[in-house]
């Protein structure tokens, strides 16, 4: 038995914020972003995305494992996945857990799902990614806020009687030495809520503090340009694919300029390469599944047997692999 993606859906908050028409917007290509309302949580978006998938025909009672990727949980404990099992009306015989990853999270989720399915521990895995980074970002940090949008995706991975794998050549990487380049310092056990606020204002009047997301953009782009081309080499070699044999490249949709530099650095200028951040911004772990769903809708007649995905970001953490989307029935 092999694990295949059978369905994809995504949900975005109703509220849309327009980015200012300025230098940053021109560079990032992000025109607007969906932003969760006060009290609208990642778990709420998760429910919407999953219900959308169910409404397309997926039978929720079949799900025997729920994976939930978020860095915006409802509580420190219990795991939000357990709350979702109840809210979504999933079977009590369904395993469920959260895992905390950002932009690499979707590729990891596929790896976990494949592991559970191909070792016979599960037949139908529901992988949900959901994030509300807007709640982590200081409202007056105008260098970071325009980059990130909120959203969620729900992906159904099922056990299929096939010889060839539907998820393969996964390669993972981690470099915790770069952890401080993308961090929310306060709120865990290291710096619990209540510690003194440390606020900085830069020359452009952007305010950041230790209670909100702190990102060193130059370090993150440098890291991405280093690990993505290298991991792509491993993935292609492992999958025994030449660059031109790949049907589509769908990398983490960070922003237009990062995607363009990666395309250049990876030598992917003449192949199908998805770059669409205009309406969403960087939705963290949901950016790849959202892009996959849009790409599938835009290419209904294309045979998408070898699609390369690549996620990279907070951790620092990265992961990539090859997926077969020819068995997607619910979109």
């Amino acid at each position, binding site marked *: 038995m092999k694990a295949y993606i059978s369905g994809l859906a995504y949900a975005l908050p109703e509220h849309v914020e327009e980015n200012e028409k300025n*230098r*940053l917007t*021109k*560079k990032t290509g992000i025109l607007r972003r969906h932003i969760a309302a006060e009290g609208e949580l990642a778990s709420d978006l998760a429910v919407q995305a999953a219900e959308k998938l169910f409404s397309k025909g997926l039978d929720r009672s079949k799900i025997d494992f729920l994976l939930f990727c978020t860095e915006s949980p409802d509580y420190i404990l219990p795991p939000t996945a357990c709350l979702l099992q109840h809210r979504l009306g999933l079977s009590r015989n369904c395993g469920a857990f959260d895992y905390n990853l950002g932009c690499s999270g979707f590729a990891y989720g596929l790896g976990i799902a494949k592991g559970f399915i191909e070792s016979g521990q599960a037949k139908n895995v529901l992988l949900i990614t959901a994030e509300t980074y807007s709640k982590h970002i200081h409202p007056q940090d105008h*260098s970071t806020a325009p980059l990130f949008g909120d959203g969620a995706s729900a992906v159904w991975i099922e056990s299929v009687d096939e010889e060839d794998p539907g998820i393969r050549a996964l390669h993972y990487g981690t470099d915790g030495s770069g952890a401080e380049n993308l961090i929310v310092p306060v709120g865990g056990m290291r710096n619990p809520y209540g510690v003194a606020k440390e606020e900085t204002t*830069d020359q*452009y009047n952007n305010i950041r503090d230790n209670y909100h997301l702190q990102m060193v*953009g*130059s*370090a993150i*782009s*440098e890291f991405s*340009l*280093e690990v993505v081309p290298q991991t792509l080499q491993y993935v292609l070699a492992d999958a025994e694919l030449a660059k031109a044999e790949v049907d589509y490249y769908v990398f983490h949709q960070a922003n237009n*300029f*990062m995607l363009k*530099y*990666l395309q*250049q*650095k990876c030598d992917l200028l003449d192949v199908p390469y998805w770059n669409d951040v205009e309406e969403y911004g960087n939705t963290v772990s949901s950016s790849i599944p959202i892009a996959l769903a849009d790409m599938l809708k835009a290419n209904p007649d294309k045979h998408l047997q070898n699609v390369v995905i690549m996620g990279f970001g907070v951790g620092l953490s990265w992961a990539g692999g090859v997926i077969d989307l020819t068995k997607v029935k619910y979109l």
Partner: protein
Amino acid sequence: MEQKFIEELTETIDTEDKLAMDTVLADLEDWDSLSFVSFISMANASYGKKVAADQVREAVTVADLYQLVKG
């Protein structure tokens, strides 16, 4: 080579100012944190050079940036 670099830099930092090798970066309104990040990415993607943020910070003129990527 220098001309190509200047064209690429103009595009990278998205400026309407006319750049020359002796242009002082601090005089450019568009030499901001965004340009900074973009330059490091451009050096890496176009020239295969890993340029450290400190090296870019120390650069005074366009020629100093060119030194970081050439050869």
